[in-house]
C-alpha cells in the first residue's frame, strides 16, 4: 500500500534540505535558537498534518517557509499576550508618512527590531525583513489593509525612536 504514504515520504525526502532553510529563517527572525527549534518542529508537524489530508497539496520549501512565518507570528502574538506587551500606541506625532533616509547599520538594525513590542516587531519583520507586500502582512496579522498600514506607521515611528535612543519601546 504505497499510495497513502507518498505525501509523507515526499516530506521526509525534502526534510534534510528544507530544515536548514526553515531553521535559518526562524533563527534569523527570532534570534533565539531554542524558540527556532520549537517553531521548526511545529512547522514540520503542521506539514505532516497537511500531508495526511486527502488530496494533500505538494509540500515545498517555500510552502514550509510560509508555515514557519505563520508560526513565528503566532509565537510573537502569544508572547505579546503573555508579557502584556500589547499596547495601543496612539502617538499622533508618529502618524505621518515617513521615508526615513538614515543609513542603518545592519546588525544594530536587527537588534533594535528585537527590542520592539510584539505588534511592531511582527509588522516590521513581515513588511521589511521578509519583504512582503502590505496586503499579505495584513492577512498574516488578521487585520484589514488599512489597519495594517496604520500599524506600520506607528511601528516605523517606534523603531526610529528606538534606533535613535538605543532602546526599544518595550
Amino acid at each position: 500500500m504505497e499510495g497513502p504514504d507518498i505525501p509523507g515520504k515526499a516530506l521526509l525526502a525534502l526534510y534534510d534540505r528544507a530544515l536548514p532553510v526553515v531553521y535559518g529563517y526562524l533563527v534569523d527572525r527570532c534570534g533565539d535558537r531554542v524558540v527556532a527549534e520549537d517553531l521548526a518542529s511545529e512547522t514540520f508537524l503542521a506539514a505532516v498534518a497537511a500531508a495526511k489530508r486527502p488530496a494533500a497539496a505538494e509540500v515545498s520549501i517555500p510552502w514550509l517557509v510560509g508555515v514557519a512565518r505563520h508560526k513565528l507570528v503566532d509565537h510573537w502574538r502569544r508572547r505579546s499576550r503573555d508579557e502584556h506587551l500589547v499596547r495601543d500606541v496612539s502617538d499622533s506625532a508618529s502618524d505621518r508618512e515617513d521615508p526615513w533616509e538614515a543609513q542603518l547599520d545592519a546588525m544594530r538594525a536587527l537588534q533594535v527590531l528585537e527590542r520592539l513590542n510584539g505588534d511592531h516587531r511582527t509588522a516590521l519583520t513581515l513588511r521589511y525583513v521578509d519583504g512582503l507586500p502590505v496586503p499579505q502582512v495584513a492577512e498574516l496579522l488578521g487585520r484589514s489593509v488599512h489597519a495594517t498600514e496604520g500599524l506600520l506607521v506607528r511601528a516605523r515611528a517606534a523603531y526610529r525612536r528606538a534606533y535613535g535612543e538605543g532602546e526599544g519601546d518595550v
Partner: protein
Amino acid sequence: MSERSDAFEALLRPITPLAPPSEFAASLRRRLEQELGMTLTDGLVSPSAELDGTLAMVHFRVVDADRAMSFFGDLFGWQAERVPFEGHVSHYTVNTELTVRILDDPAAPPVVPNYRVTDVAAAVRSIERAGGRVAASEIATDGGGWAQGADDQGVPLLLFRPGRYHRHGAPTRAASGDVGLVFIRADADRAERFYRTLLGWHLERAHPGSHYFEAVARVGIFDEVAAFGREATPSVSLYFVVDALTPVVSRIVQLGGHAGPAEQDMGPYFTSLCSDDQGTEFGLMAETLG
C-alpha cells in the same frame, strides 16, 4: 537629484540556511516518522529526554577571549555573542551547529564538554555516588540548572538543562568550522561505568582491537594506557571539523598561529594539531586534504 530611499528597506534579509544541531534534526526526523506511522516505537520519548546525555556545548579556554574570537572568527567565520562576567569575557558562538563558549577565565580547564540532562539534581547525586566531584552548581527547584565538576578520573564536565536562554543577535552567515570531536583520554572501563550511570552512555569500540570508543555524537574516549601501555593523565582535547584541511592550516599560519603536520590517525579523517596566535591548542579534522 538623488533618489529618495526608505531606510527600512535595509532590513530586507534573504533566507540564509543554517544547520540546526544534529541531535535536534535527528530527533525531529524521528518524530515525523512516528507521526507518519513509518516507524514502530516501543513508546514515545519526549524530545528533551531523548537528548539527555548528548553534547550540548563546549567551553574552550583561551588567553584573551576577544583576541581569540577575532582569530576564530576569521578562521571559521564564527559569529558570537560577547558576554563579560566576573572579570572575564566569554564569546558564545551563534552560527555553529554546536555552541562553543570561548572564555578567558584562567581558572577554567582548557576544554569542558557540556552535556544535556533533564534533571540536574539527580545528575549531581549520580556524579557524587559514582566518585566524581561537583565543584559548583545552581539547581532550580524543578531540577533544572547546571553543575560543573569532574568525573571519577578527573575529566572535567558540565551538565545543564537547556532553557530559554536570553536573546541574542541572529547570525548572518554559516560557519565553516564546527565542533568535530571532544577527544577524551581516559580509562575506557572506568569511563563506561561512570558515564553509563550518569548519562546513559554505551561506549562502542571503533573497530575490533581499537582502543578508541565512540560515546555519543562528537564525543570519543581513547584509552591511551591500554593502547600504549604507559601512564597518561586523563584529559580532553577539542577538534574542529572543516571541509578540507590544507586551506585552513594555511590560514592558521597566516593569522599567526601554528599548525602541525597532517596525519591520518583518526579513521577517515586527516588531522592536524594546531594552536592559535596566543598558543591555545586545538585540533583540526577533515575528510579531505583539499
